[in-house]
């Protein structure tokens, strides 16, 4: 086996996750995840004042890597401007089952994640640091707990429920408050009023790992991707921001349907990624979202896939907000109808509009985004299905370009 590749048998029943060595976050794949190896590889834990941390994270334009892409420096400043002693929360609850990058990062470099949290907590003078672990990935929990035991700082851990919406920021604050791990309405961002009504800096694991590198003078010039197809095992790799997708994906992957950003993400038309780069700006201009860096490729009919995904997402509603409870099953049904050639796109768009911004969390919005992007990127295939033809079933999908 290639020494720069680690295969982590994430689940004994699965074929594992392939983790490829990267230039910074995943540069220590062969070294082992323990503290001694980490210190040898990355050097000692730096201490930064708050102004310096704000300045450096702004200078390297660090955006949150949980999906929303909010500027970390802005969040940091909001935390300092609100009343009360702040808390820091590392969110490792990858509710999106297709995402493996935060788990992979934690298997390879748990101390980089903890360093970032520690540096942030020290700069903020935080009262406590919480690490929220995934409920369904025991290897990640054990790895993080082992890493915490090696360190002198105090970290509290909590385990998230196995549910798609359990990783949403408001749901994580609920969990840490001793309530059910489900989203509630947050009238203000957690950075302003979060845990125990105090300012709470909650960010994703990859974001904190970038903080650890930025504090050591390395910029946030890369991003983690989970690339998964229909047959092979998921691959996690670190990619330079601005790298052309042509150099990230294989030709057959580029020319087939790609769902970017996971189940809450956007469908790219065949070949649409050929002229784009791995960056929020390049993809945003094309109406595509990088989200939490999930890239789902494959040669199956995207209409069928979208209907399956929407059906799953409808079943993962926390069941609390009326428009989501009622609207997502209807939206999923509209997508199933469209895949069978029975319905038009008007109903899909109408239902998407009825669930957007009408819930406590981003679940309805994400589901609507996925559905809308199918209508935009696969208009031709949707018309073909109405004529009783599926190009993918016929083995002659639309050519790229």
């Amino acid at each position, binding site marked *: 086996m290639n020494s720069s590749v680690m295969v982590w048998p994430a689940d004994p029943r699965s074929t594992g996750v392939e983790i490829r060595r990267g230039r910074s976050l995943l540069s220590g794949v062969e070294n082992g995840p323990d503290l001694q190896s980490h210190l040898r590889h990355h050097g000692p834990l730096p201490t930064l004042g708050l102004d310096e941390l704000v300045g450096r994270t702004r200078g390297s334009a660090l955006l949150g890597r949980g999906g929303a892409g909010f500027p970390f420096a802005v969040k940091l400043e909001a935390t300092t401007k609100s009343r009360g002693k702040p808390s820091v929360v590392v969110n490792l609850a990858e509710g999106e089952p297709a995402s493996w990058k935060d788990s992979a990062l934690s298997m390879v470099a748990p101390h980089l994640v903890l360093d970032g949290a520690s540096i942030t907590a020290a700069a903020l003078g935080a009262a406590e640091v919480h690490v929220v672990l995934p409920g369904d990935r025991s290897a990640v929990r054990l790895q993080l707990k082992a890493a915490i035991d090696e360190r002198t700082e105090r970290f509290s851990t909590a385990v998230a429920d196995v549910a798609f919406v359990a990783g949403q920021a408001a749901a994580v604050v609920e969990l840490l408050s001793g309530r059910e791990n489900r*989203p*509630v*309405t947050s*009238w203000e961002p957690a950075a302003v009023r979060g845990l125990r009504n105090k300012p709470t800096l909650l960010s994703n694991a990859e974001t904190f790992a970038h903080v650890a590198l930025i504090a050591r003078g390395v910029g946030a010039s890369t991003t983690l991707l989970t690339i998964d197809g229909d047959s092979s095992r998921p691959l996690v790799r670190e990619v330079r921001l601005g790298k052309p997708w042509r150099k990230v994906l294989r030709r057959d992957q580029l020319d087939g349907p790609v769902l970017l950003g996971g189940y809450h993400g956007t469908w790219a038309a065949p070949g649409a990624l050929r002229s784009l780069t791995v960056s929020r700006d390049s993809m945003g201009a094309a109406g595509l979202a990088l989200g939490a860096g999930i890239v789902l490729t494959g040669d199956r009919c995207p209409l069928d896939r979208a209907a399956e995904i929407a059906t799953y997402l409808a079943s993962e509603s926390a069941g*609390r*907000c*009326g*428009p*989501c409870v*009622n*609207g997502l099953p209807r939206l999923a049904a509209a997508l199933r109808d469209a895949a069978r050639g029975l319905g038009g796109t008007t109903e899909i768009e109408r239902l998407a509009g*009825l669930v957007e911004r*009408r*819930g*406590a969390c981003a679940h309805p919005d994400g589901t609507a985004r996925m559905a809308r992007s199918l209508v935009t990127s696969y208009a031709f295939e949707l018309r073909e299905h109405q004529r009783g033809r599926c190009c993918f079933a016929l083995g002659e999908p639309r050519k790229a370009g």
Partner: protein
Amino acid sequence: MKRQLRVDWPVCKARGLCFELLPEAVSLDEWGYPIIAKEISPDLVTAAREAVRACPTLALRLVEARG
């Protein structure tokens, strides 16, 4: 100051009083949940406050409009 009505979605149980009291800014979707106008104009603020007070599940708030 521009104002808007915000719904506490997990708390809203589609009782529809907001629509009864403020049809100028609230309509109902096919399941009975409110669809709220982007902004509450100054002449509707008093009626909006009344709707907030009347909501049987306390699911409405009148807040400063956000971008």
